[in-house]
C-alpha cells in the first residue's frame, strides 16, 4: 500500500511537540498544495481499486463460465454451503464497512476517541470474518474432503465436476480472505498511527485510502455471497 502514503513525514521541530502530528504535516515537495496532493492520492487509490476489481473479475469470470458449463455441479456445490455462515459474514463485513466510514468521519471532526473505537471495531469485525470463515467453513469442509481439483476427496459427490466448484470456491474466497488479512494489517497500522495523532481534519489521506480499500473488500463479498451461497 505504498501508493497511499506518499507524504513527507512531519518534521520534528523544537517547541511544537504539543501540536498533534496531523497539524504539523506538510505536503510533499513536488506538490503545489495539500489539496492537490489529497486529490492525487485519491485518484491513485481509485486506480488501485480498479486493479482490485479486475483481479477479482477473473474469479467472477471463471465462476460464470463453469456455471454455464456445469450448472448442476456448481449448484450442487453451492448446496454444501450454509447460507447462515455466509450471511453472518456479510453482516460482519457490512458493519465493519460502516464503522470505518464512521472512523473517517470522526477523524474529519477530530473526534479522536470515537475514531479509535470505530477502527478497533472494524479490526475486530475483520478478525471475526476470518475466524468464521476458517473455523466454520474452511476446516470442516476441507476435512470432509471437499477440496479443490485433484485434492478432492469427498466420496459422496453428486456430480462429476464438483471439484471444479471447490476450486472456484477456495480460490475466490481465498483471494478475498487474503485481502481481508491485508486490510487487517492496514487497519492495525491506522490504529497505531491514529494513536500517535497522525490523522486529523486537515490530514487523513491514509485513512481515506484504507477506508476505500476496505469498502472494496466488502463490495467483492457483497457479490461473492449470493453467487456462492444463494444463487442456485
Amino acid at each position, binding site marked *: 500500500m*505504498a*501508493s497511499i502514503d*506518499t507524504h*513527507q513525514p512531519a*518534521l520534528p521541530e523544537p517547541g511544537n511537540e504539543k501540536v498533534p502530528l496531523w497539524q504539523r504535516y*506538510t505536503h*510533499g*515537495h*513536488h*506538490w*503545489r*498544495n495539500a489539496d*492537490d496532493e489529497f*486529490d*492525487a492520492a485519491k*485518484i*491513485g487509490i481509485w*486506480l*488501485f481499486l*480498479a*486493479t*482490485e*476489481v*479486475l*483481479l*477479482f*473479475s*477473473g*474469479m467472477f*469470470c*471463471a465462476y460464470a*463460465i*463453469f456455471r454455464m*458449463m*456445469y450448472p448442476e*455441479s456448481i449448484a450442487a456445490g453451492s448446496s454444501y454451503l450454509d447460507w447462515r455462515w455466509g450471511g453472518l459474514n456479510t453482516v460482519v463485513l457490512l458493519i465493519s464497512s460502516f464503522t470505518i466510514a464512521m472512523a473517517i468521519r470522526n477523524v474529519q471532526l477530530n473526534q479522536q476517541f470515537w475514531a479509535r473505537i470505530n477502527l478497533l471495531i472494524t479490526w475486530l469485525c475483520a478478525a471475526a470474518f476470518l475466524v468464521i470463515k476458517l473455523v466454520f467453513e474452511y476446516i470442516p469442509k476441507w476435512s470432509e474432503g471437499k477440496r*479443490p*481439483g*485433484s*485434492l478432492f476427496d469427498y466420496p459422496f459427490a453428486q456430480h*462429476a*465436476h464438483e*471439484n*471444479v466448484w471447490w*476450486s*472456484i470456491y*477456495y*480460490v475466490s474466497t481465498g*483471494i478475498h480472505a487474503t485481502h481481508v488479512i491485508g486490510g487487517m494489517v492496514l487497519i492495525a497500522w491506522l490504529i497505531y498511527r491514529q494513536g500517535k495523532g497522525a490523522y486529523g481534519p486537515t490530514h487523513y489521506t491514509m485513512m481515506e485510502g484504507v477506508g476505500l480499500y476496505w469498502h472494496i473488500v466488502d463490495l467483492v463479498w457483497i457479490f461473492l455471497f449470493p453467487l456462492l451461497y444463494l444463487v442456485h
Partner: protein
Amino acid sequence: MTTVDRNLDQLGDHGHHDEGSYLNPKYGPIATVWDWMTTVDHKKIGVMYLFAVLFMFFLGGVAALALRIELLEPTRIDETGNLTGAALAFFAEGETVSQAAAGQAYNRVMTMHGAIMVFMFIIPAIPASLGNFFLPLMLGAKDVAFPRLNLASWYVYVFGSLFGVFSILMGGVDTGWTFYTPYSTTTTGQPQVIAMVLAAFILGFSSIFTGLNFIVTTHKLRAPGMGWFDMPLFIWAVYSTSIIQVLATPVIGVTLLLLIFERVLQIGIFDPGLGGDPVLFQHFFWFYSHPVVYVMILPAMGIISDVLAIHCRKRIFGYRAIAFSSLAIAAISFLVWGHHMFTSQGELAAMVFSFLTFFVAIPTAVKVFNWIASLYKGSITFTTPMLYVFAFLFLFSIGGLTGLPLGTLSTDLHLHDSYFVVAHFHYVMFGGTVIAFLAGLHHWWPKMFGRMYSEKGGALGCALVFIGFNMTFFTQFFLGTQGMPRRYASYVDEFTLLHQISTYGSLILALGFVVHLVVFLHSLFLGEKAPQNPWGGLTLEWETETPPIEHNFHHEPVLTHGPYDFDEVVPPGWDPKDYPLPEQTPGGHKH
C-alpha cells in the same frame, strides 16, 4: 530523499537556483551508489530502468541470436545416429543427443527469448525508462505523483526479473511465453516454471505501479497553463498506455496465480482432465496480453509524434486526431483479444472478434497518415532520431498492413501460428517499438546524459539495424505463407534458404546494436557537451538545463506556447538569428 524546503511561496516554487545536475555525485562513491539506490528522483529511476531494460534486451537478444543460429540448418539425425545441423551449437562436442533433446534445448531458449523480451524488456522499455524520465519534465512537474511508489516499481521490476533469471539458471522453461495450458501445467521442470510464472506475476505489479503513477501525474501535476490539449503527444500516448497497464495487468495477475495453483495443487480450472477448460486460460491470458501489445506500441507512437515534429520543425498534423486515436486504441484494445484464438474458439466469437479487430486498424492508420502529412512542408533533418523515424514509418507500415490478413478470418486460418505471425509482430514490436525506442533514446540522450553522440556512428548503426532487420524478418513472411509453423526447432529442407537469409540478417542486426553500444559508450565518456536544446524542441524538457537539475526546473514553468508551435516561437536556448520563423499568415494556425 530530497530535503523539504520550508519556504514555500504561493506558486509552490522552491527556487532551486544553486542546484547542479541530477547526475552529479555528491558524497563519494559508496554514498553515491546508496543515493542512487534510494533515490525517489524520477530521472534517476528512469536511468536505472533504462540500464535494467537494456540489460534484459541484451539477454533476450543473445537468446534470439542463439535461435537464429540453431535455425541456420535443419536438425537431423544421420544414419549413424548422430545429430547434425546447427542445433549442435547448443551441445558439447561428442554428446549423444536425440532430436527431442535438441528440440527441448531450442524450446527453452525460445521461451527465454519470448519471456524476457515481452515481460522484462518491451513492456517497461519506453514507459518506465524514457517515460519516467521525461513525463514529469514534459509536464513541467518536479516529480511524478508518487515518487516512492516509483522507486518501488523499479525494485519490484528487478525482483521479478531475478525470478526470471533464476528460472533460466535452473535450466529454463519450455512453455513458451504464452504459458498455454495444459502444456504449461504438465511440462517438466516444476521449480523453473513456477519461478517464471511468478516472475511475470511480480513484473505485473511493477507495470501497474508505473501506470498508476503516470495517470495521476498527468492529471494533477501539469504545469500551470497546460491544458489537456497542450500536452505533448508523447504524454497522451503514455497516458493511454497507463490506462491499459492499470486495467489489464490485474487480470494476468489472477491468471498466473491460477496457473500456479493449477501447477502446484492441480485445482483443475484450466485442466481438462479435471473438468477445466484450456481455452478459458487463453481468454484470461489474452484479455491482458492483447491490450499489452498496445502498452508496447503506444508509447512508441508517442515518441514518433514528438521526434518527428521537432526534427521537422513542423506542427504535427492533426494533433487532436493523434491524441484521441491513442485513447481510442487503448479502449478498443480491450475488445479484440479473441483474434489470437481464431483457431481455438467458437465460430460466433471468432466472427465478433474479427469484426472488432478491424476497428483498431482505423486509429492506427489515422496516426500513420497524420505523421506522413506532418512531413509536408517541413524542414526535415537527417539526424539519427529522424532516420529512425523514417525507419519506423517504413517498418511499422509493413507491420500494420500485414496485420490485415491476420485479422481477416479466412486468411488467418492459414497464417495463424506460422512464421507470418512471427514476422508481423516483429515488424510491429521491433520495427515499431524498438525502432521508436532507439529514436527516442538518440533524441533525448543529450538531455539525459549531457553529451552529444556521434551522428555518423548513429547513422551507421541505424543503417545496419534497418538492413539487418529487414533481412531477418521480411523472409519470414514468405516462410510463414509457405507453411513454416512457428516455434519449430527444425524444418523441412525446402525452407533452408530463407532461414539462412534470416539468420545472416540477424547477425547484421546484432552488429548494428554493437555499433550503437560503441556510439553510446563513446558519447558517455568522450562525447562533446550537449547544449540545452540541441534539436530546437519546444516541449518543457528543453527549457531546463542539460542535464536537468535535481528538481528539474529552477522555477516552476508556466506554459506560454504549445508543444509544436514551431511557426511562432523561437525554441528556448536558441538565438532568433539562427532560427528563422516563417512569415506569419493572418489568423495564425490553431489546432
